[in-house]
């Protein structure tokens, strides 16, 4: 079915009434028959006109079958627009252009058109008039027009509704644009832009502004690591038993050792050929460290190289508070280093705390006991101290416990010196850590002191025998041998201290004065020359306390 319009299609009919029109099927000369252009169900505009009458009709016909069509819609007729009931006689029948169905241009060339043009045909499906300043918009079925705005307004969407005009506020004019990097580390060039142009950024964003401050290209696996002021771009460093593999955009960290603790709970871990292992011979339960085997001590186990640091040994019987000349020894190994130094104390067992009331006291560590390196001096109490290494003498400011020395040379004496205050448990040990005071067995500590000073006292017997000897060829001169309980430090340094001694030849006791016989001194003994009187020549004799509990005989080999 199609709408057909065609030129020069004409026939004749003798059909009467208002029914279908049947044509002859024979077209006049110069025309075509209906059947040459129409098929069944095609529609077309027709005109039927009586040849000797005033009857005519124009309408939309539907071609029903060959040479016959139905008068589907009458558009105009001699019967006032209704279907004409044609009378007898021949009628002209032809395809025509219906006046009411023809689009034409008027005399000015404008199309003569009534109704609305559908959207599908490029129309607006609307009769709305676009007044001045309006803009068209779709309603979903037709084109409508917005209201007209005012000058300077901008169009604002109304969603699916009509757009509206709005006034823009805050209007102004930008005349120049520029950019400053400030303290960011960035720089800009190309500005100011007053019309058109480009501002170009360069430089490195500083740490303070969220940047890195770095310009180097990161290597595989590189990280930016804070260094206190900025960042260092570096790769990770593998510690022991760790491997690090850097790739583009990745870091792989793996362990090459370590792993699961060996042994059972509480067993101390040790390196067993590169793997952790434990043993029942060495355990720690959180409180006690227990060894089932032999603990082998390093040579530094006896850490304190000071002697009598707890003021236990007092062979010279220093009396609390006694003002003492510089260089005079008080408790063993401790000597005054200032005129009239003195300290007070109450002798304890085993530890004694002294209070240095005036002056200073010091101890010199023998060169043989200095292995070298850094030493730490520690003590209890309020006294302050200073240290001299490498055989030097003390100087400078005193400081509180603990004090660590610079590296000392091996085989050079070290002197520690204390100023006023309370003082006890003095320890000088290798390393930088002050460990608890190392307690000594009394006999060991006494023997350590006796390397430097050895005294016999007559406290328990007023005729104490200090040594055996002989009277010389003259009655006023004798010799006596004194043996030491431990080897003393240096025979050439010996000094003799004594009080109230006598020679006894079996008959006579006679007071004596003593000096060392320099030709007899050794590490373990010394012979004394006694000047006395009334002795029997060549008789064996004893060097004794001369009837006095205050008598004593001492040998000093102090530093």
């Amino acid at each position, binding site marked *: 079915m199609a709408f057909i319009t065609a030129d020069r299609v004409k026939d004749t009919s003798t059909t009467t009434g208002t029914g279908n029109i049947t044509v002859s099927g024979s077209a006049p000369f110069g025309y075509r028959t209906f059947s040459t252009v129409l098929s069944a169900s095609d529609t077309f505009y027709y005109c039927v006109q009586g040849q000797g009458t005033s009857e005519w009709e124009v309408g939309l016909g539907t071609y029903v079958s060959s040479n016959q069509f139905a008068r589907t819609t009458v558009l105009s007729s001699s019967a006032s627009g209704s279907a004409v009931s044609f009378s007898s006689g021949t009628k002209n029948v032809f395809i025509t252009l219906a006046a009411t169905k023809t689009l034409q241009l008027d005399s000015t060339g404008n199309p003569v058109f009534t109704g609305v043009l559908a959207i599908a045909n490029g129309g607006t499906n609307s009769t709305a008039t676009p007044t001045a300043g309006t803009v068209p918009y779709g309603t979903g079925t037709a084109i409508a027009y917005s209201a007209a705005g005012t000058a300077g307004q901008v169009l604002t969407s109304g969603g699916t509704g009509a757009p509206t005009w709005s006034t823009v506020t805050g209007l102004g004019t930008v005349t120049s644009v520029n950019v400053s990097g400030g303290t960011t580390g960035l720089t800009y060039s190309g500005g100011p832009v007053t019309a058109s142009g480009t501002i170009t950024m360069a430089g490195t964003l500083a740490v303070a502004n969220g940047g890195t401050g770095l310009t180097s290209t990161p290597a595989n696996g590189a990280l930016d690591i804070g260094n206190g002021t900025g960042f260092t771009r570096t790769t990770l460093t593998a510690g022991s038993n760790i491997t690090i593999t850097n790739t583009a955009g990745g870091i792989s960290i793996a362990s090459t050792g370590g792993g699961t603790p060996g042994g059972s709970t509480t067993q101390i871990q040790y390196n067993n050929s590169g793997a952790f292992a434990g043993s029942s011979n060495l355990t720690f339960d959180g409180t006690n460290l227990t060894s089932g085997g032999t603990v082998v001590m390093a040579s530094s186990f006896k850490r304190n190289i000071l002697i009598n640091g707890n003021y236990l040994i007092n062979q010279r019987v220093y009396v609390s508070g006694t003002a003492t000349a510089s260089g005079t020894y008080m408790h063993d190994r401790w000597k005054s280093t200032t005129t009239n130094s003195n300290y007070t104390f109450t002798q304890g067992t085993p530890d004694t705390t002294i209070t240095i009331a005036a002056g200073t006291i010091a101890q010199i560590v023998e060169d043989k006991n200095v292995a070298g390196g850094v030493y730490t001096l520690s003590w209890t109490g309020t006294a302050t101290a200073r240290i001299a290494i490498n055989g030097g003498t003390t100087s400078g400011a005193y400081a509180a416990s603990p004090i660590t020395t610079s590296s000392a040379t091996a085989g050079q004496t070290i002197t520690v010196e204390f100023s006023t205050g309370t003082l006890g448990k003095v320890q000088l040990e290798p390393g930088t850590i002050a460990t608890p005071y190392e307690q000594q067995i009394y006999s060991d500590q006494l023997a350590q002191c006796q390397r430097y000073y050895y005294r016999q006292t007559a406290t328990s017997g007023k005729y104490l025998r200090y040594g055996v000897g002989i009277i010389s060829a003259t009655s006023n001169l004798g010799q006596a041998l004194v043996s030491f309980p431990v080897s003393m430090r240096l025979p050439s340094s010996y000094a003799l201290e004594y009080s109230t001694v006598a020679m006894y030849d079996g008959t006579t006791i006679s007071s004596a004065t003593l*000096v060392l016989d320099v030709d007899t001194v050794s590490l373990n003994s010394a012979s004394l020359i006694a*000047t006395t009187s009334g002795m029997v020549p060549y008789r064996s004799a004893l060097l004794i306390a001369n009837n006095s509990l205050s008598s004593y005989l001492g040998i000093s080999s102090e*530093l």
Partner: protein
Amino acid sequence: MTVREIIVEGLNGPQKHIVIERDDGSFVSFPANPENLNYVNIMQLVEAGELTIAPAEGG
């Protein structure tokens, strides 16, 4: 305290010693040789004018 120098007769001949007699009647003596630290200290005090040593008779 008094300090004096004495000479005593040893097996190998005379020896010089320094003897200090303290105020409590006790004595300190040591060989007067430069190797003895006590002697060196005493000599330093003598040189400083802080100590006077009575010379040995006939020494």
